């Protein structure tokens, strides 16, 4: 399955990318997707501890099992206000 990935805030500059998609086997987890992304965008690795990941409009942990049609977003700590 092909999973759409969005980057926000300075992750766009870090990756040089706003939106990409990643091909993954069925039943893949967010952690699998994340590993693929780090290979593709090595600069993400340094931010691993602070990276937030959402599927759709909800936060998910790395063991979340991806479904076709999921839209994944990666971004640094939020700073509203």
């Amino acid at each position: 399955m092909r999973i759409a990935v969005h980057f926000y805030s300075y992750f766009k500059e870090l990756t040089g990318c706003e939106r990409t998609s990643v091909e993954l086997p069925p039943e893949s987890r967010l952690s699998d997707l994340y590993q693929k992304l780090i290979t593709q965008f090595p600069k993400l690795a340094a931010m691993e501890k602070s990276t937030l990941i959402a599927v759709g409009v909800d936060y998910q942990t790395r063991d979340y099992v991806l479904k076709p049609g999921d839209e994944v977003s990666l971004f640094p700590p939020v700073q509203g206000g």
Partner: protein
Amino acid sequence: MKRSLEITRDRIDEAALIAQRQLSTEMGAVIYFVGVVRGLEGDVQISAIDYEAFQKMAEHQFQLLFDQMEKRWPIESVRLMHRIGVVKVNEPSLWVEIIAPHRGEAFAACQWLIDEMKRVVPIWKKPV
């Protein structure tokens, strides 16, 4: 609990928002928090902040926070406005109104909401 949420490029018109305030006769406390862009970001002088939001998720996360607020405190109404795009130094980027029977719950809920917003609502800033 009445809710109003706006994540917008428009300026925050405090007088207009206050003119629209509605509170029932059992409400005794209204709190406003206005977050204003400061001229120093760390040690660096800036002229504005450019706010970016993942808007759909930001709205959803605010609604989840409102759900929790509603369970936790007897709040009659919450209104929140957050600007995105370029907000100049000295201009409000965030406006929050909480209406409650007493000041204790109004202060507690308002502080909690802002703390949680800064933890979960996907909005970011870039100094300009």
